[in-house]
């Protein structure tokens, strides 16, 4: 039974070309159904006195039915008497039976009845999504196959190479409809056909004269905003407040202290005392560089008696190249930086994304003003004439790489680019959410499907904002992420890659030719076998196909070769499955080819192996695609198929206020870009923009004080929190702008305040008067975040490779299931440089709250979970780091255990041990040493047991210190 089915199935699919052409997707009663009934039924059910009073001659009489009721239920063939009778074989009586094809045709006709009742007026808006979902990828803005463009009414009427395709009023004569109906279009092997209902809509539209919607030139006026909305604090530009007078002027190092003290004094509180020098030192290092100081730096600082030693320290750290590496990660969280596309399980690596990460580090290290920083990221491609620029410089690369900012959300559209319009819409929506939460402090995503429930943000405004980006992210003229790459690179880099790859490519060609030669006889055998199992007609056709060179094949032949690609041109995998001997002989060359090709995680991601091809250098950028962008529409409920009114680029009305220059595109003559995004960047970075500076200073504050002034940093709207210190926030925002949007100036200001220099010890007054520390009456105790912990462990154990920039460090999954970064020759790189693949987060980072980017992360959570303890105490890498450190301690002070312990404390905890601590450690060392010795003896270890036991004992102590709360927390 099974083989019969198989045959039948193959047979049918082989004939599908012909079948589909004649098969009646939209069967007509007179033309299609009646002949079947005539042949089989009308003998008894056609006369004037039909059997069982059932007349099957017209569709009306079918519906009227006979003795047993109606013969059909329109739209539901499964409930129709006619169908159940012929399927069960009880009709027609006797030997005769309707063929399956005849039955399915009748069923289709009945099933279609329900949808034909809809005759309400159909307009262009109703058919637009059909074109958008099924047609415009090939007949649209950048591709006009067959000379046909279906994006506008004019171009539809013009038609293509085969003449006009749309004859208003005449669906039958409209090629557009006829080819869809015949299932010739869209090509069934690539794009899903429209549904029955959609085909009907198309027909009704053409029947109705194919009415076009009148183009509305101007944006529909939004309803006036209420005064309450306009007056909401975060929608009004920040006003520079007076610096308050406080009683304890001696504690005021800068206005930050005055604003904080005013609230503290109101509760009869004050700041806590200044922290000890080594505490401040460690705090400053970890805040600015993400790692503690080296012993030499600690000693030098603690001995520096000059008054401005602390201020100098801050300046020194701000100039450290490690500053950019530390602070880049905060920004990368906001941008949702990852090195893989997500969505599809393959989780393809983004081979070029790292240039964006490097851009951010460089920009922060050079203190690029924040307004410029944003402008480069939103519209870097519109700032330069990169198409004409002949010499590629690092600056040019950086400014283009900067636009990677809105290219970082999950994007699975590379898998089957033509498949789903909704997927493309989702990518764009995610980018809008990144933009809103990271920079604007607005939950714009809430207005995607309906007007914002709380904030004065309509759905129309959401799509208008999105329209600004349509020249680069056009859902109707989509480029999958793999194709959105600008191949601009330094000449030296291009040359290096080319000369590296040239011999490898030769080798590759040779290997491939050999393999193909090997495969040839098997392919012939395979073809013979495969053809034998096919019906004769198809067999002859396919033989003709394989005999014709690829470029000489007719349209039908091309179709057949696609349809039967595994027969015509079977892959090596298919061949190998069929012929084990080929599988065996091909294994070796295939392995070599794969090695050289170096495709890992779906991409060419060469991580420096000299025996593999290097990737062609490129930039993952967002750039204007030139020409007129496709129109943007409001999508009802956010659904691609529910097209609403057309919208035009603009910014939300509540932010378009007097005193602020309105949004307008900045078009540069002679360049094929709309200037939409550059205009938006200019609008966003105006000095008195209500949100831009506030949102940013709130975040800077958070990374120094462990808490935000507005506790919902991605949401400054109505459902967000009110600032705890509104005047301080506005003072900081205006100060930020006044200091030329300099981030480093803000760090210096904050870190040199009295507030920042407080101890974290909880004094009695502070605890009672400010239990939650909302007023900052002390410095909060903060845990190291994932990256700071990772990097600090490497730094203090002497295993940090400080190499900056470049392609990400590969990560691998150990047999234990732990995901770790690969070691370099010099050790391990900083966390910011590790490959961030969504499916393979590095275990050590994940355990300490490295976030899932969805689509970004606008605030990290901190947890204390058991996996952290297990990770730090038991992981192979942690134990190895601890042993390495212990070994170096012993090298530096051979035989001097006390010195080793002092050195250990200085490295790990940035201080010397107290006497009681030293004694406790020494006592523990003795115990541990004995235990290790016993262990080594029991295992009958070959090496010297005494020294090994001492080393192991010191390793245990080092591991313990790396696990200690003092190391893990910043006082």
């Amino acid at each position, binding site marked *: *039974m*099974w083989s019969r*089915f198989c045959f*039948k*199935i193959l047979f*049918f*699919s082989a004939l599908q070309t012909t079948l589909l052409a004649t098969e009646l997707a939209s069967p007509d009663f007179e033309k299609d159904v009646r002949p079947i009934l005539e042949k089989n039924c009308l003998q008894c059910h056609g006369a004037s006195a039909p059997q069982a009073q059932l007349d099957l001659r017209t569709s009306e009489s079918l519906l009227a039915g006979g003795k047993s009721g109606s013969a059909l239920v329109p739209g539901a063939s499964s409930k129709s008497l006619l169908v159940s009778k012929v*399927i*069960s074989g009880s009709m027609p009586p006797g030997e005769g039976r309707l063929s*399956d094809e005849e039955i*399915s045709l009748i069923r289709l006709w009945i*099933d279609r009845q329900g949808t034909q009742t809809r005759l309400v007026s159909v307009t262009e808006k109703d058919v637009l999504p059909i074109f958008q979902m099924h047609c415009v990828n090939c007949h649209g803005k950048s591709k006009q196959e067959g000379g046909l463009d279906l994006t506008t009414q004019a171009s539809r009427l013009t038609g293509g190479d085969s003449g006009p395709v749309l004859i208003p009023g005449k669906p039958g004569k409209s090629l557009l409809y006829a080819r869809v109906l015949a*299932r010739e279009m869209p090509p069934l*092997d*690539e*794009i*899903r056909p429209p*549904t*029955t209902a959609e085909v009907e809509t198309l027909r009704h539209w053409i029947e109705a004269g194919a009415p076009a919607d009148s183009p509305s030139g101007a944006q529909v006026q939004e309803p006036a905003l209420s005064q309450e909305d306009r007056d909401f604090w975060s929608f009004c530009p920040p006003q520079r407040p007076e610096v308050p007078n406080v009683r304890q002027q001696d504690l005021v190092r800068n206005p930050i202290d005055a604003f904080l003290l005013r609230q503290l004094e109101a509760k009869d509180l004050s700041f806590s005392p200044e922290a000890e020098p080594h505490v401040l030192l460690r705090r400053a290092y970890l805040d600015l560089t993400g790692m503690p100081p080296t012993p030499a730096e600690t000693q030098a600082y603690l001995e520096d008696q000059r008054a401005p030693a602390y201020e100098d320290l801050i300046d020194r750290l701000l100039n450290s190249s490690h500053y950019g590496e530390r602070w880049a990660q905060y920004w990368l969280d906001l941008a949702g930086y990852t090195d893989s596309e997500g969505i*599809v*399980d393959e989780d393809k690596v983004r081979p070029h994304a790292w240039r964006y990460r490097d851009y951010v580090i460089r920009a922060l290290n050079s203190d690029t003003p924040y307004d410029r920083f944003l402008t480069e990221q939103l519209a870097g491609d519109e700032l330069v004439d990169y198409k004409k620029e002949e010499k590629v410089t690092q600056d040019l690369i950086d400014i283009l790489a900067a636009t990677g900012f809105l290219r970082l959300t*999950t994007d699975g559209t590379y898998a089957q680019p033509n498949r789903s319009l909704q997927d493309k819409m989702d990518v764009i929506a995610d980018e809008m959410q990144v933009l809103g939460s990271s920079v604007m402090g607005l*939950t714009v995503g809430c207005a995607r499907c309906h007007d914002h429930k709380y904030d004065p943000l309509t759905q129309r405004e959401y799509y208008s904002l999105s329209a600004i980006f349509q020249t680069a992210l056009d859902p109707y003229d989509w480029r999958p992420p793999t194709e959105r790459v600008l191949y601009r690179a330094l000449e030296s880099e291009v040359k290096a890659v080319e000369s590296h790859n040239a011999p490898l490519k030769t080798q590759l060609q040779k290997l491939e030719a050999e393999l193909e030669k090997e495969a040839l006889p098997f392919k012939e055998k395979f073809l013979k076998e495969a053809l034998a199992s096919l019906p004769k007609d198809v067999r002859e056709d396919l033989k003709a196909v394989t005999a014709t060179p690829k470029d000489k094949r007719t349209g039908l032949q091309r179709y057949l070769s696609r349809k039967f690609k*595994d*027969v015509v041109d079977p892959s090596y995998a298919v061949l190998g499955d069929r012929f084990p001997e080929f599988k065996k002989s091909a294994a070796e060359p295939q392995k070599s080819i794969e090695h050289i090709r170096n495709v890992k995680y779906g991409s060419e991601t060469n991580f420096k192996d000299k025996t593999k091809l290097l990737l062609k250098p490129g930039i993952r950028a967002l750039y204007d695609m030139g020409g007129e962008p496709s129109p943007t529409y409001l999508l009802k409920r956010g659904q691609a198929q529910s097209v609403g009114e057309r919208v035009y680029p603009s910014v939300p009305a509540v932010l378009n206020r007097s005193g602020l220059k309105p949004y307008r595109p900045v078009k540069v003559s002679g360049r094929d870009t709309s200037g939409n995004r550059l205009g938006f960047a200019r609008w966003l970075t105006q000095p008195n923009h209500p949100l831009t500076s506030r949102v940013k200073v709130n975040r800077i504050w958070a990374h120094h004080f*462990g808490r935000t002034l507005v*506790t*919902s940093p991605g949401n400054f709207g109505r459902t*967000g*929190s009110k600032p705890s210190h509104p005047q301080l926030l506005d003072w900081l925002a205006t100060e930020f702008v006044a200091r030329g949007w300099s981030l480093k100036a803000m760090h210096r200001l904050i870190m040199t305040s009295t507030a920042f220099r407080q101890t974290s010890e*909880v004094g009695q007054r502070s605890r009672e008067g400010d239990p*939650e520390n909302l007023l900052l009456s002390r410095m909060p105790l903060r*845990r190291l975040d994932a990256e700071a912990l990772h990097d600090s462990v490497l730094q203090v154990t002497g295993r940090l490779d400080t190499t900056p920039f470049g392609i990400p460090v590969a990560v691998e999954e150990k*047999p234990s*299931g732990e995901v770790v970064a690969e070691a370099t020759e010099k050790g391990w790189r900083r966390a910011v440089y590790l490959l961030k693949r*969504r*499916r393979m987060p590095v*275990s050590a980072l994940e355990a300490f709250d490295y976030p*899932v*980017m*969805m689509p970004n992360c606008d605030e990290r*959570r*901190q947890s204390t979970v*058991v*996996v*952290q*303890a*297990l990770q730090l*105490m038991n992981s*192979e890498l942690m*134990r190895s780091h601890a042993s390495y450190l212990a070994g170096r301690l012993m090298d530096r002070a051979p035989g001097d255990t006390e010195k080793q312990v002092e050195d250990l404390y200085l490295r790990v905890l940035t201080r010397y041990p107290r006497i009681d601590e030293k004694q406790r*450690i020494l006592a523990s060392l003795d115990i541990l040493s004995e*235990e*290790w010795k016993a262990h080594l003896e029991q295992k009958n270890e070959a090496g010297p047991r005494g020294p090994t036991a001492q080393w192991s004992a010191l390793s245990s*102590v080092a591991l*313990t*210190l790396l696990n*200690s*709360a*003092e190391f893990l927390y910043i006082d």
Partner: protein
Amino acid sequence: MTRYRPRGPGTRRDFFSRIGDGLHGAALAYLLQQDLLASTKSDQPAPRFDLKPRSPHFEPKAQSVIHLFMNGGPSQVDLFDPKPTLDRMAGAAAPRDLLNQIENMDQVGTLMPSPYEFSRHGKCGMELSELLPHTGKVVDDITMIRSMYGEHFNHEPSINLFHTGRLISGRPTLGAWVTYALGTENNNLPGYVVLDDKNLPVNGIQNWQSGWLPPVFQGTRFREKHPAVLNLSPKQELPNPLVEAERSLLSSLDQAHRRDRPWQPDLDARISSYELAARMQLAASDALDLSQESEATKEMYGLNNEVTASYGRRCLMARRLIERGVRFVQIFIEYQIWDNHSNLKKNLEYCCGKTDQPSAALVQDLKQRGLLENTLVIWGGEFGRMPISQVRAGAEVGRDHGPDGFSMWMAGGGVKAGYIHGATDDIGHKAVQDRVSVHDFHATFLHQMGLDHRKLVYHRHGLEERLTDQYPARVIEEILA
């Protein structure tokens, strides 16, 4: 309901001040029950997230859940949903609306009946395919839903939908929601355990992440291969006294550190997390030690048969874990073995051979131990398959993804026994009668745990997030006992 809101700071401070008062024993016991104290940055009462048992919204039917997730999409018309009409229409062209949802457009075949015979089982007479003889023995304990429908034709989004309620990734999973709501009954084991195959399933670790819920609620992966729990002990096995010496040094350092820093609750939480780590080493080893089981039990789960042993072991572990108070256990299968695009016969027989006996044994075993009443067992994949064939040259036919109608079953935990709910159309393509959305399933699932899907919320950026989000979702009252 305010009960599930994070608690106010007063409670927390009071508690820690009790430690200072010397109520060490009771306080410590309390501490041991919790895994986490989130340090928060908020001007609202500081939320606290832990695994302490919490009471549900109303009397629950199920205390714990075992979710047998069948990645890939098992074919309903070949297993659970007999369609005689398909036999009669074999070879007919696919309806247009079916084609509109096909994943592989270049491999479209024609209507294809199941090659398998169906027969009636149990007192209820539920029809099942010949591939599921063992499931046949427990039909009188299960509810079969034949009218599930999804929203997407691809695995990744559909799996997201099934586990998190949305097609996109990054949201909390079912297990995370349940442990967030209810905590766990065993303070030596995680509340949400994932029993993972030799290789990761599609979507990898995203299948058990906590999304924006605190990480304490994410699933802990107990792997099939050694080591079962990542870093549960060092790779190099160390003698106990040595491990103890390391621990006691750390403990003394941390205690001293804490003494110098009173009123820092995070530090106490951290110390307790190290203590839990130590206890978990013992508890997890015990829970996973199947040598404690009788031969009869091992035989029942198919542990002595190579084909069933791997899945059987995990089903048995699942029972042992929920016996010990673990709230939510999920069993995944590597990759997506049910994704039978080609070679339907061979592959389906492999999948059923691997899972049929252990799944049925789990239901029987839970029942004989009186655990089925309080345990909800769920069997199903992210979607079903198409009633048409998928044709790939060089391979036998298979079936493409079918999200519009598929079957899944549940047992115990207050669902009806020996009951069939809903139906697909007569070719088995689309759910037509008593349709059940994934959101309906989620609402029902929470309901059995004593939770109202509209009230189980998490406050995030001023918004109330829910498992069922803004979707219409209803508890499927019809399947409740």
